[in-house]
């Protein structure tokens, strides 16, 4: 079982993720935008608006401030985790040496950023879950909406545990990924905490292309339709 999760499943996960993404996004582009469906006032630079949407969650900030606080914290956490995983594993915690830190300082910084990201994501997800369980938002939720958050919480919690309660050696993880990427057999043991975390992570990645989590792509494509002006000149500039 453990071997399956670390030695076989990752390749499956990869295929499902990549083909899933291609399949879904191609599906969207197969259907058309026949009419001009934007909302006014149309921004001068739709691209810039999209960027503001990605960087700041502008619409949510404008109309749903309390949700923005939770959501922004949560997503910022996820984003830092994403970056942190790539850098942290690739450099085994020594990524900050690139900016002149000593290896020990880098490990400390890596730990601190990990704490920040893990805390943001955990409390963000928890806040979103509690919000979803209460009153108005509960009315619009289906089982999957909870499952999404619980799954993320499971990943974040096991991740946080590996940083604090059951530390995992980053060098071992780095070696594992190096072996995995170069298709070498994985014939050694990995810490159980890691395997559990890793398993949930892969479930998320496989499930991502087929779920509402794909809002990160579809949502932005939709927003672009709304934001792009119709390019017609006004009779009078007011």
């Amino acid at each position, binding site marked *: 079982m453990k071997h399956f999760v670390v030695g076989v499943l990752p390749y499956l996960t990869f295929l499902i993720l990549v083909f*899933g993404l291609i*399949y*879904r996004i191609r*599906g*969207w*582009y*197969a*259907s*058309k*935008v*026949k*009419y*001009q*469906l934007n*909302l*006014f*006032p*149309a921004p001068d630079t739709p691209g810039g608006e999209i960027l503001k*949407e990605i960087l700041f*969650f502008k*619409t*949510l900030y404008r*109309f*749903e401030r309390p*949700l923005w606080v939770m*959501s922004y914290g949560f997503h910022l956490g996820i984003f830092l985790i994403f970056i942190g995983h790539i850098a942290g594993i690739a450099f085994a915690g020594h990524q900050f040496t690139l900016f002149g830190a000593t290896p020990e300082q880098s490990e400390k910084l890596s730990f601190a950023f990990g704490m920040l990201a893990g805390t943001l994501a955990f409390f963000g997800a928890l806040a979103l879950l509690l919000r*979803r369980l209460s009153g*108005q*938002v509960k*009315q*619009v*939720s*289906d*089982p*999957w*909406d909870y*499952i999404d958050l619980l799954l993320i919480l499971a990943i974040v919690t096991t991740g946080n545990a590996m940083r604090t309660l059951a530390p995992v050696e980053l060098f071992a993880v780095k070696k594992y990924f190096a072996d995995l990427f170069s298709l070498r057999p994985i014939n050694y043991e990995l810490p159980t905490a890691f395997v559990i975390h890793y398993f949930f992570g892969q479930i998320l990645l496989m499930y991502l292309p*087929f*779920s*509402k989590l*794909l*809002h990160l792509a*579809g*949502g*932005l*494509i*939709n*927003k672009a*339709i*709304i*934001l792009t002006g*119709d390019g*017609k000149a*006004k*009779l*009078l500039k*007011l």
Partner: protein
Amino acid sequence: MNAPQKAKDLAPLPYRILDDEEKVRKAVAIIREKAAESRMFKLAMECCTKCGACINACHSYLGTEDPYNIPTKRADLVRSVYKQEIMPLSGVLGKVAGGIGVSAELLEKWFTYFYQCNQCRRCALVCPFGIDTAEVSIMVRQILAELGMVPRFTVGIVKNMANTGNNMGIAKPALLDSCEFLEEEMYEETGIKIRIPVDEEADIMYVPSSADFFVNTNTMIGVAKMYHAAGIKWTIPSEIIEAANFGLFFDEKVMKEHNRRLLDCAKKLKAKKIVQGECGHGWRAARMYTDGLNGPVDVEIRHIHEEAAYFIARGIIKVDPEKNGDIVYTYHDPCNLARAGDIIEEPRFILRHVVKNFVEMTPNREENFCCGAGSGLLMEEIMETRMKLGKVKAEQVKKTGADYVVAPCSICKAQLPLVFEYYNLPVEMSGLMDLVGKAIIL
């Protein structure tokens, strides 16, 4: 549950009444077809994160307090079928995602709730992803039409449109009589012979709302006075005295046919410019959909407020705000004019010139709330629902303390007086060109 009455005879629509079994059998295929056609509908079905930002943005939910009127939950009525039947991996994920199959009862629910949506697009404004439940609503009404479910009221309008070129069913002799009467009225008032030319060749083809020849006559008078004062030759086409294009709300074919008629008339009258009168969705259909429906076209399409603002700004017409008195005016942004049609600042510019006291209501401009009858929800039998849909508007108006609401859209003009009466607001209401007509110096 207050649903419009369904038409028993759909002519001249190209659909027929189906029995329940046939409806259920066909529904999924039609949804699939619509998703393949429209990216926005597809994305709305697949990408909502259920964050709930739309809940308190929707006047329909705020007024009725019925959870199915929450935009995302309204969309769920069809999204649940989509998840079950169409979404990739639906077999595995569908049920847990709240998926359900189509049933006759579900279709009835669609009919009820998608006809409690005013297609005002406020949800699209507040959604972080711009998911537009109005677009979903348009699509679902289209699906319902293809399944033979259309309100009797709407079919009546399509019938009148096909027979006479306007929603009310005014034939040319009646139109000529009405124009002559309005010309006499203007002569009596001003001592000047101001014309309302019908079917004459002119650069400008003005398309009024047919309701301007029944109740909102001052709107028509305002327009006639304005073009007279500007010294510009204009005309109205007897074959389409209807800016409103009800097809936008529920049927693409009807929309296209109306739009084609509009363009044909412009060609026949050698018009270089089509000017749309005070109708919200008709403006959206003409401005935003013409290219996609029958385009590209070489005729310019403008709104009457663009014209009026331009004439005022350039000094082509002169106006005197004194003539509209000391009372306080406020402005209601028709959804399809503002959010969906970019006529946001022009009416304000005009108002500031034609009245002395103008106050904004909150929220305003693209954030404004619907009057509660948008998307053609003018059926008498759903009056109770209509009043609930107008509740937020009534509260907004009340807070302004204004005496007079300016609402330049025939649907708003039909709905608002009833709303004000129902909520005991002693305010008057009219279009904007009405006030231009009163303030204009001839």
